[in-house]
């Protein structure tokens, strides 16, 4: 029989205001195995922990139940306290009477009842707990960064500067990401490429950084400190070692009809291409869907003109397997599809564009060489209308419920740049709210209004209709003047909502990192661990975690790097002893557990067993404790119940359920 001590925390008034803690103590004392119970204002404090140590000493406790906040908050604290008191840390159970009880209930009587039940469940479990010993695992001192945009580049540089090897995996042919598509950046209006390209060069020249472009993560196994990752290096059809980046192949390529991804499909590119002039690496790829050689077998012009002999039509995808200690996800974003927003006529008129398309139009290397012109007829616009929150802050399920955060600022930027360069163009912005929280942000917006005369109208646009004269009729509301507005515009720019890059779902699944309903990766704690995923060893950088502008992204990239460095700096990690274990006599050897194990931790051995006198060779599941993460998937699928999770055994869980239902 265990000798259990129950420690009920007030958490100041967080718990005590809603839960009668004295009552919880009183009720806990009635439970089997409980020899001590007390309450205290802050159990996690030095004085609170001292009470646990004292009780262990005086009453000879073998098990400890702390009724307090979530175990994710202070389980480690109390386990350490138990260890100091000479009790195995895995003899501690937390009854979460704060997040699961006091914070979500108002009625004291009801909440107290529930707190007592939660305490009872934890006590029932501790009665069946057994001491567990953690093992050790090694740390591979190499980091993987998934995504080569500004977030990935910054994280990689910071990790590499600390002396660790970093690989960047980027799915497109060049690093640079969305930032490379931007013309100017707010609030300073400096040129995006001017500040990004030096970073790209720095990353590619860094002796500790290795960049895999045109590559994708294919498979991830292992766990914190010891991930094994398969990277698919897609066939570039160009030998990276031979290519000099002269660009002749791109000039001579006769197939020039593929839409340019870099220019958001506003113009075309050759079948063999680098996305943009400053691409890193400066080695083109052949788009096999567009290439005549691949489509018809005829052509081969690029091979003929290539002095370096770098063209290799026979190149195959290559799988690279590498080990990593830490993984940083920096998969970034894309703009949402506008097919559900017919009212803005995006698909009907070439002169209705997204803001990212405007970035390309404004850029000197863009489809119009930086001239602001209508894509339908090449004429200079006189009236421009910007529509904010297209798909953002959306109440229905057509768009996103969240604020995309960057649009207010980039629209102010666009408006200002247009008014500066083309003072004869009238610019009108329809908005719900103008949100400018950030250093020098509101000043920036006010400059657009006050100095550049941008016409801001609070109200939304209901419809954009292409007119026979080639103009666009914008029908909107002015909420301040309380009137309908009908305005003829030459161009309409939609501040389209951003969403996590679609590739993130697959990556999150491979990493067993959780994502929210909007496909943003979730943090381990929204306030206190914002750059860590709940999955150990996986860190978050940039917009994959939530909408961000460049300064925020760079700051978060650095923070993610620091967390990764903290992990890589360790030589060994303590492993969780709550791992699965198969009962040899009950195991059927059916392999179902091995099939579902996401960590590849289960193998099978033929072993001689003595089953009550019957000696026979049986195929039996064996769990590798270093690989097992204690997820419990195997225990659920095991038909005979041979597989059990140490620290969370079926018996313990049933005991908890029974205690709750009693």
């Amino acid at each position: 029989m265990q000798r259990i001590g129950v420690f009920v925390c007030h958490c100041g008034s967080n718990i005590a205001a809603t839960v009668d803690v004295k009552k919880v103590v009183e009720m806990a004392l009635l439970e089997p195995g409980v020899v001590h119970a007390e309450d205290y204002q802050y159990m996690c404090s030095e004085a609170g922990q001292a009470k646990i140590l004292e009780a262990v000493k005086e009453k000879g406790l073998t098990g400890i139940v702390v009724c307090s906040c979530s175990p994710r908050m202070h389980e480690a604290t109390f386990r350490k306290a138990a260890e100091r008191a000479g009790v195995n840390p895995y003899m501690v159970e937390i009854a979460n009477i704060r997040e699961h009880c006091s914070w979500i209930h108002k009625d004291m009587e009801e909440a107290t009842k529930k707190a007592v039940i939660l305490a009872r469940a934890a006590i029932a479990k501790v009665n069946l707990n057994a001491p567990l010993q953690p093992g050790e695992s090694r740390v591979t001192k190499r980091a993987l960064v998934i995504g080569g945009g500004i977030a990935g580049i910054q994280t990689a540089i910071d990790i590499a500067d600390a002396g660790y090897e970093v690989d960047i995996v980027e799915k497109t042919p060049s690093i640079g990401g969305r930032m490379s598509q931007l013309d100017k950046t707010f609030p300073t209006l400096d040129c995006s490429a001017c500040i990004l390209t030096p970073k790209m060069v720095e990353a590619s020249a860094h002796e500790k950084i290795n960049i895999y472009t045109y590559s994708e993560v294919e498979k991830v196994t292992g766990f914190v400190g010891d991930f094994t990752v398969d990277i698919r290096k897609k066939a570039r059809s160009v030998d990276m070692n031979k290519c000099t980046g002269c660009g002749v192949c791109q000039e001579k390529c006769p197939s020039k009809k593929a839409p340019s991804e870099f220019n958001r499909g506003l113009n075309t590119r050759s079948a063999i291409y680098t996305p943009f002039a400053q691409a890193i690496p400066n080695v083109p790829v052949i788009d096999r869907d567009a290439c005549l050689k691949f489509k018809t077998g005829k052509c081969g012009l690029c091979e003929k003109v290539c002095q370096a002999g770098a063209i290799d039509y026979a190149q195959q995808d290559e799988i690279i397997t590498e080990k990593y200690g830490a993984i940083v996800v920096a998969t970034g974003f894309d703009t949402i599809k506008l097919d559900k927003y017919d009212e803005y006529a995006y698909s009907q008129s070439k002169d209705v564009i997204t803001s990212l398309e405007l970035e390309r139009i404004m850029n000197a290397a863009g489809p119009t060489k930086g001239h602001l012109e209508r894509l339908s007829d090449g004429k200079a616009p006189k009236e421009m209308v910007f529509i904010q929150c297209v798909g953002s802050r959306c109440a229905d399920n057509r768009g996103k419920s969240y604020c995309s955060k960057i649009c207010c600022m980039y629209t102010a930027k666009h408006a200002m740049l247009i008014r500066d360069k083309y003072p004869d163009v009238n610019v009108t912005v329809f908005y719900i709210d103008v949100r400018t929280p950030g250093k020098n942000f509101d000043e920036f917006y006010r400059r657009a209004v006050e100095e550049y005369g941008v016409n801001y109208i609070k109200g939304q646009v209901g419809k954009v209709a292409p007119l026979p004269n080639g103009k666009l009729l914008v029908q909107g509301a002015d909420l301040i003047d309380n009137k309908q507005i009908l305005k003829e515009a030459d161009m309409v720019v939609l501040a389209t909502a951003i969403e996590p890059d679609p590739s993130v779902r697959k990556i999150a699944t491979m990493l067993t990192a959780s994502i929210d309903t909007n496909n943003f990766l979730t943090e381990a704690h929204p306030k206190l661990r914002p750059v860590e995923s709940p999955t150990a060893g996986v860190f978050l950088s940039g917009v994959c975690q939530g909408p961000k502008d460049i300064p925020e992204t760079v700051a978060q990239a650095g923070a993610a790097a620091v967390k990764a460095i903290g992990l890589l700096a360790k030589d060994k990690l303590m492993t969780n002893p709550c791992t699965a274990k198969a009962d040899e006599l009950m195991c059927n050897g059916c392999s179902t557990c091995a099939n579902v194990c996401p960590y590849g931790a289960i193998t099978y051995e033929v072993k001689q067993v003595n089953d009550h006198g019957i000696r026979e060779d049986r195929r039996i599941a064996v769990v590798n404790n270093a690989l097992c993460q204690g997820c419990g998937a195997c225990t659920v699928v095991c038909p005979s119940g041979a597989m059990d999770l140490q620290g969370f055994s079926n018996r313990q869980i049933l005991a908890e359920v029974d205690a709750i239902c009693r």
Partner: protein
Amino acid sequence: MQELVNRAKELLADGTVVRVLGWKAGDLPYNPEPAYFTSAEELDNFVYNGFCGANLSKYMIEASKLEGKTMVCLKPCDTYSFNQLIKEHRVDREKAYIVGVGCKGKLNIDKIKEKGIKGIQSISGAEMSDACDTLTIQTLYGEKTCSYAEAMLERCHVCKGKEHMIYDEIIGESKDTKDAERFAEVERIEAMSPEEKFAFFRNELSKCIRCNACRNVCPACSCRKCVFDSTKFDTAQKANVDSFEEKMFHIIRAFHVAGRCTDCGECSRVCPQGIPLHLFNRKFIKDINEFYGEFQAGADSEARGPLTNFTFEDCEPSIVTERR
């Protein structure tokens, strides 16, 4: 049948197999039972007819542990179970010489009795070589006839097909006897209100006497130690505390075989109380088909079942109800 016996004798004689797993006559004309035969003389008692419903694949678990090969007679639907058992490493393919036996639908004596045919002395028209369209029954009260199809087991009306999924050789012809929709009964129950469903199953399961025949015959229930027999869990006791927990036996069993059940129908065939136990399993199969695409357990011995596999196309549990 004689062809089968002759072949069995040959295989025993040339040493290919050391025993034959088939059926022998029972006490009554309609209850042949599974049996091992180790010699030509013993094979004289070998029987194979329309009443040999028993799925022999599960016997191969124990036979796989014996020395030498066993010739096992498997009907087309039994081969699904055998494949599933290979997948779960419960039988040894190398220890089995599979003779795929012809099947034209198997009979349910209760269906004949329900027609008021009593005092049965012998039944003809159910041999493997017969056309299997009419049964001629000699009774104490004279000769009676009965349509073969009307006397078939429920599972034969939703026959999975006449093809054997795995075999070394095939003896005899098979017939696809499907003449009903497999999920019609499940759909009928799905359409009920929760109260009606509960009442339906409470009524059916109240007949259960916990004889464990369903579990013992089920090829998917192949655990060395069943959770209901183990002292390691509280389930052994749980199943007896009150009538509701008694019913949990069948629910838990259905969950344990979900995704692995081939719908062989043995549970319902052997139930002495006539409980339509296959309906639980068939509901799972229907759901699995709808959520993850058509899947037939045991169609091969390698494919991973949808419940123990993962693909990026899998539906999210949270939107399962939307998909339906």
